[in-house]
């Protein structure tokens, strides 16, 4: 049983998706610039990275009960959400500034050292942004499906794989300025990471199911044969992971593009499922029965009483 609207909802899942993908894109951009050279990714991709993080943050703000006071999130240094907010802000800034180096119209576009420094900053902040939702969720002691370090790996992995796919798609639309050799290998990287993803998710569910506490086992049941199971198994594992894995291995650019698009859909779906999977607290015995008998969700009753 879920407590609709009283827990994090779909907007947060979409935030996690965009921010993670954007973070992943920055990681890739930073790494390539530092170790391969500039211009290996599409300028569009370079811009989209920070933009996606921005979209994610905006959705996060919309999800707030008091969106106009969003700036307050920067206040508590001990809170992981505060750290996340700062890192997202930095990542957006660094990412956008880095992207300007791809445009000759700016006089600083030839400052190599500055670009390398920014690439490093993009890598660092992007990596944090790509990983942080997983850390955030994994620290939730009372949410058995999330709790533990495993979720962190899954989020980082998904951020990277969606990052690669997004860069690929950006490259199809707007090819990179210099060389396409590296970008051409992205579908292979994607396929490799998807293979990891498939394996790790099987492992994650198995470990959770047989895992430490009864509540973990109960929470995981939703993924095996409960309300999340078909979205998870057919939507995410089959169409969001296995299918794009196969498509990415093909040599046809259009099939690869379809594969990349599926990766993105799969990534978004995974965030939705994970956020919903966290609706389950460690319920106390009898608590779900109690809550299921409250009028919440009984629209006819609520309408009659609030007329």
């Amino acid at each position, binding site marked *: 049983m879920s407590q609709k609207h009283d827990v*994090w909802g779909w907007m947060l899942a979409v935030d996690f998706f965009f921010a993670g993908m954007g973070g992943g894109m920055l990681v890739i951009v930073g790494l390539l610039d530092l170790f391969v050279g500039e211009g290996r990714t599409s300028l569009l991709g370079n811009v989209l990275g920070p933009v996606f993080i921005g979209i994610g943050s905006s959705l996060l703000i919309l999800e707030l*009960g008091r969106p106009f006071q969003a700036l307050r*999130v920067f206040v508590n240094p001990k809170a992981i959400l505060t750290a996340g907010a700062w890192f997202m802000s930095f990542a957006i800034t660094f990412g956008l500034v880095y992207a300007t180096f791809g445009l000759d119209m700016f006089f600083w576009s030839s400052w190599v050292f500055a670009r390398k420094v920014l690439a490093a900053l993009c890598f660092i902040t992007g990596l944090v942004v790509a990983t942080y939702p997983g850390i955030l969720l994994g620290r939730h002691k009372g949410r058995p499906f999330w709790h533990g370090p495993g979720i962190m790996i899954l989020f980082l992995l998904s951020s990277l794989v969606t990052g690669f796919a997004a860069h690929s798609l950006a490259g199809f639309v707007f090819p990179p300025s210099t060389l396409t050799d590296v970008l051409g290998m992205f579908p292979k990287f994607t396929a490799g990471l998807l293979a990891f993803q498939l394996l790790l998710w099987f492992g994650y569910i198995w470990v959770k199911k047989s895992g430490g506490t009864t509540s973990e086992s109960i929470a995981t049941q939703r993924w095996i044969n409960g309300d999340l199971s078909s979205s998870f198994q057919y939507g995410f594992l089959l169409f969001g992971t296995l299918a794009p894995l196969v498509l990415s291995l093909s040599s046809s650019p259009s099939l690869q593009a379809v594969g990349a698009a599926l990766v993105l859909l799969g990534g978004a779906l995974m965030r939705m499922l994970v956020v919903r999977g966290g609706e389950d607290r460690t319920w106390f015995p*009898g608590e779900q029965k109690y809550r299921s008998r409250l*009028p919440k969700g009984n629209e006819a009753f609520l309408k009659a009483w609030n007329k």
Partner: protein
Amino acid sequence: MARYAMVMDTRRCVGCHSCTVACRVHNELPLDMIYNPVVTVGPTGVFPNVRMTNLPLICMHCDNSPCVDACPTGASQQRPDGIVFVEEKKCISCKACVMACPYGARVPNHEKGTIQKCNFCMDRVDEGKLPHCVKTCHQKARIFGDMDDPTSEVYKLVNNGYPVRLLGELNTEPYVFYIVDSEVKL
């Protein structure tokens, strides 16, 4: 300095829900908000060999409170006497605390756009009165007091018996203690 705590004697609680109503009425909560549900464990077993226990839930005012840690705005705070509360004007309802609390003690107020929670009726406590849920309990199943005062009833109950902390394994160090019959598994 005081350290406020509550003891729930589940052997006395009959599950009448008076505390829930008293809290909702006196704290003027919207009807979709409950700070202190009383859930019923069981009857477990098979008729006629059954058992039933009532479990009054509430904010545990943890010493190691995950909700305060999770709050990005500093709205969630803990007083030196242990009472965890939300400073409403700072809250932006990001629900980080809702998700962080293992006890379901944090409740969104959709009318105000903030998160609220039991604060042990701290205004009353500061005036030397008991929280509403304690005052209204016919069964005296809820005992409130100062854990730093060795003469207090809560101190004696906690130190002389075998009270249970809910989800104690999470190291949240709750300051709500449960007295439970030994056969009951929570």
